[in-house]
């Protein structure tokens, strides 16, 4: 059995540097020894290289699933001052629309509240879209 390191012992950055021909002779030899002795690692390197030559279009389903992973993480560490302001604004809008709808008459109260709710949704959606939240 070879003493060459397995794929999980070789830094992906080292492998990437090898693919990009940026290593010195000693590191080249180390990587090539590992590739010659670990067929799974060699398959990974060949697959990575192929992906760089002709990357396929990302599937919409996969892209949507991945997008869902990111937003909650990407807001961590950011200033949170925008969120309370956004929520306050949204609440004000909803209140204004609801009051405006109520003022037009009881006979149409049910219908107008439904319309007010729909309009509030549109306003909220546009606001968050402007600030970049809630995008797919």
């Amino acid at each position: 059995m070879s003493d060459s390191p397995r794929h999980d012992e070789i830094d992906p950055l080292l492998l990437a540097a090898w693919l990009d021909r940026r290593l010195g002779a000693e590191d080249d030899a180390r990587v090539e020894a590992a590739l010659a002795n670990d067929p799974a690692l060699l398959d990974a390197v060949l697959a990575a290289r192929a992906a760089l030559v002709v990357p396929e279009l990302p599937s919409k389903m996969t892209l949507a699933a991945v997008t869902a992973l990111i937003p909650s993480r990407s807001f961590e560490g950011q200033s949170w001052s925008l969120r309370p302001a956004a929520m306050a604004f949204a609440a004000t809008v909803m209140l204004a629309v609801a009051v405006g709808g109520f003022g037009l008459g009881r006979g149409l109260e049910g219908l107008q509240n439904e319309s007010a709710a729909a309009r509030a949704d549109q306003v909220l959606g546009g606001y968050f879209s402007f600030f970049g939240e809630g995008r797919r």
Partner: protein
Amino acid sequence: MIDMFDPSALAAGDSGAWRRFLSPATAIAQTAIRRVLAAAGKADETGDVVQDFFLRLLKDDCRLLRRFDPSRAKIATYLAMVAATTAVDHLRKKVPQPIGSAQELETWLPSTPPPSPTGERLDIPSGVLTPRQALILQLTIGKDMSPQEAGALLGISEQTVRSMRHKALTRLRELETENRSEQDGTEKG
């Protein structure tokens, strides 16, 4: 275009940077992962492993992104390599299926690399050939790559690949001859 992305902005949680990054990164990751999984007959698991890839990027406060050094490799190459090794890890976690004879199954242990489904792996004695010679044999014989393709991968000419391959095979034949002579001498003695 992906080489224009700043990993530090991603690691800092810049949502705009992530939105611009996702599509090209998914394209690269999906392609690399699908190739690895397809060779093992598990291409239908590509979507799941792509998600694993992004979770890996996010893990430990985006450790992999923070570690990236643009002086060592291109970001696209790095991402492709992380994606491909994520797929290999995924396959290694799978419960081993019968891969051939009962003898092969008995000798295959989870701690050892599973046999490559994409072609034969040549059993080359260690220390006999240089790493590059051994790799050239694995590529041109094990993976059935042409000398031109192998040369493109290694950054050397086709002629150099042919020459190194010839030297490697000559060395292996010499070794075989030596081993036979020793065996004959042992039997006679």
